[in-house]
């Protein structure tokens, strides 16, 4: 076995060991948690880069835990999709960890810091585990580790966050129960939990009612976790009232890992054939996504609270991803637009949340009506926000533009002209709410004329991650347009049997 093939398990195991080390080290120094967490996530991120390189050059990694053969033992499978999502998750976790340094000092009591970082590291462990595993039940376990850590971390802010976290807890528990029921049904008819094995055994049982019910349960369960449109009700409160760094990580890394789990279950376990023949839901997904794109954007316009506005904007953007999933079978693009937006949305929303939380950290500004003159007071943070907002609206060559371009091309190819109109309309709505903020920041003059404003920028550890993401929004957009990662996307599509249109 090559040493590099050990990396998928190391990403999870070292993170777990580090989580408890933080708890022990907390007895000696309260502030050590941040440094241990940062070092671990950096290490994990480097491992994930090696994993991607190995997967692209050599091939899929199959790792048998404990040396037990797959249908009996747990198997970790890392193919191109896993490696791609793993990098997104760990990169955003890394930036959120850097960002947490100063913001957490303000929001969390010093004596709670070790526990906070233990939970933070457990959240990262869970997310990394969700992404590398090739076993249905193991996916459930890791999703539950991540979610439980997430509930506690959201509640760490206290006050209104407690109610938000409780709502999330109830809905998240419902979702995970649905998913567990789905696993139970699949296990009862096939006797296996391994994803690759299920994929082989299921086709003979597609007509079985238990399998069809399992699909519906898994879809709804994971749909709650991803905040797909009608199942999104926990999401705005949770994103709004969570501590800053946690808003960043759950709105990017955690949301993306859940969507990855959904895509994996739909395309890898049940396969496209099953859905086309027995559960024609792609049309429904498209329409749900279209409603989400408009509904989320309209509600975002109605918000004065910036974090809440971004949370509703996230609902709209999950709609974009799901539209990509819904159109995947009827175009030659396959899942490419959806997977693109997985990365793109993580970059943009990470940057926007970082900026929004920096405003709260430095000036205590939740409400956008207080933003007048902020562009001169916090120039770098506002610049990062401006870049990400322009990218969200879709200024070429940003990532938002690339997503919209590919989605429109996909919709045109599928002959679904109505969705082209929906994308344009939703973009128009995005201009309204983002430009409103930008106008207040930069253009609007305070009543009583211009005043002398002192520059009061947020700390460097909060500004730099935001600026990095803002610049990446444009660099990654150019990389997409050049087309370097497109062979990777084609490899994913062909693995799922997508990208070829059956007339």
């Amino acid at each position, binding site marked *: 076995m090559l040493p590099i093939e*050990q990396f998928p398990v190391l990403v999870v195991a070292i993170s777990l*060991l580090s989580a408890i*080390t933080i708890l022990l080290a907390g*007895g000696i120094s309260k502030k050590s948690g941040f440094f241990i967490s940062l070092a671990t996530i950096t290490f994990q991120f480097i491992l994930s880069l090696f994993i991607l390189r190995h997967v692209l050059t050599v091939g899929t990694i199959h790792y048998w*835990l*404990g*040396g037990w053969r797959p249908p009996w033992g747990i198997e970790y499978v890392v193919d191109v999709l896993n490696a791609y999502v793993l990098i997104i998750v760990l990169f955003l976790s890394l930036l959120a960890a850097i960002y947490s340094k100063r913001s957490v000092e303000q929001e969390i009591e010093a004596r709670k810091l070790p526990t906070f970082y233990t939970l933070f590291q457990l959240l990262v462990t869970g997310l990394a585990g969700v992404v590398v595993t090739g076993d249905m039940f193991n996916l459930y376990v890791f999703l539950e580790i991540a979610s439980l850590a997430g509930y506690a971390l959201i509640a760490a802010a206290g006050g209104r966050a407690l109610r938000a976290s409780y709502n999330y807890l109830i809905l998240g528990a419902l979702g995970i129960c649905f998913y567990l029921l789905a696993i139970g049904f699949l296990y009862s008819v096939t006797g296996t939990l391994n994803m690759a094995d299920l994929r082989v055994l299921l086709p003979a049982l597609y007509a079985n009612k238990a399998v069809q019910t399992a699909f519906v349960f898994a879809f709804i369960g994971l749909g709650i976790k991803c905040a797909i449109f009608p199942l999104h009700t926990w999401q705005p409160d949770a994103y709004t009232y969570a501590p800053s760094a946690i808003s960043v990580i759950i709105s990017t890394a955690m949301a993306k890992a859940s969507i990855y789990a959904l895509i994996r279950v739909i395309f890898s376990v049940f396969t496209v054939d099953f859905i086309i023949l027995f559960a024609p839901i792609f049309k429904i997904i498209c329409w749900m996504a279209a409603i989400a794109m408009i509904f989320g954007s309209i509600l975002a316009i109605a918000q004065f609270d910036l974090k809440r506005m971004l949370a509703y904007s996230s609902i709209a953007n999950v709609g974009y991803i799901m539209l990509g999933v819904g159109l995947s079978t009827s175009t030659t693009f396959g899942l490419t637009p959806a997977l693109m937006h997985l990365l793109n949305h993580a970059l943009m929303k990470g940057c926007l949340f970082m900026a929004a939380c920096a405003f709260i950290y430095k000036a205590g500004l939740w409400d956008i009506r207080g933003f007048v003159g902020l562009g001169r007071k916090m120039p770098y943070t506002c610049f990062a926000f401006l870049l990400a907002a322009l990218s969200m609206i879709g200024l070429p060559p940003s990532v938002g533009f690339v997503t919209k371009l590919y989605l429109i091309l996909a919709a045109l190819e599928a002959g679904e002209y109505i969705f082209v109109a929906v994308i344009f309309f939703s973009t128009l709505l995005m201009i309204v709410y983002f430009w409103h903020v930008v106008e207040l920041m930069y253009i609007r003059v305070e009543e009583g004329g211009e005043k002398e404003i002192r520059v009061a920028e947020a700390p460097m550890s909060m500004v730099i991650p935001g600026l990095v993401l803002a610049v990446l929004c444009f660099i990654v957009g150019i990389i997409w347009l050049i087309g370097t990662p497109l062979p990777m996307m084609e490899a994913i599509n062909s693995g799922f049997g997508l990208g070829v249109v059956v007339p």
Partner: protein
Amino acid sequence: MSAEKKYGRDVVIETIARLMIPFIQLYGLYVMMGTEGAGGGFQGGTIIAASFVLYVTAFGITSGRKKFPESWNAAFKCLGVYLYAGIGLLCIIFSLGVAEYLNYAAVPLSNIIGQADTRALMIADVVEIGIGMTVMAAFVSLFFDLAWKEESVKEEEGGAEE
């Protein structure tokens, strides 16, 4: 006034508890690792945690906390996970990256007592002790969290000193 002082101490309950607790803990250890084969770590840990609950019931919550402070609790929780995850990692290290994580056949003991026995020892005993420790510490800390608030007792202690 705390509940303990109001009701006083009861000789019968204290004596019975003194007699029972060692046996409960021994039984917990037996469930954890007494039989051959995997499993029992969770149940054994729960039984040992139950003995702490009995101790608190008999001797009062303040002396219970003194016997088993929160720092010990955290240490036990971590130690259990270290045992489980650490031995898995040791498998990779001892085999120089050849064996998989948690592949106990790679632990060096297998040269002495054979691969099958090493696996059995690790799965049935060492890992079960790790699970038991973490479960025990988690249950005890849950019990204390539900029963009692740290601040309120500090005040009581302060009052007693006066």
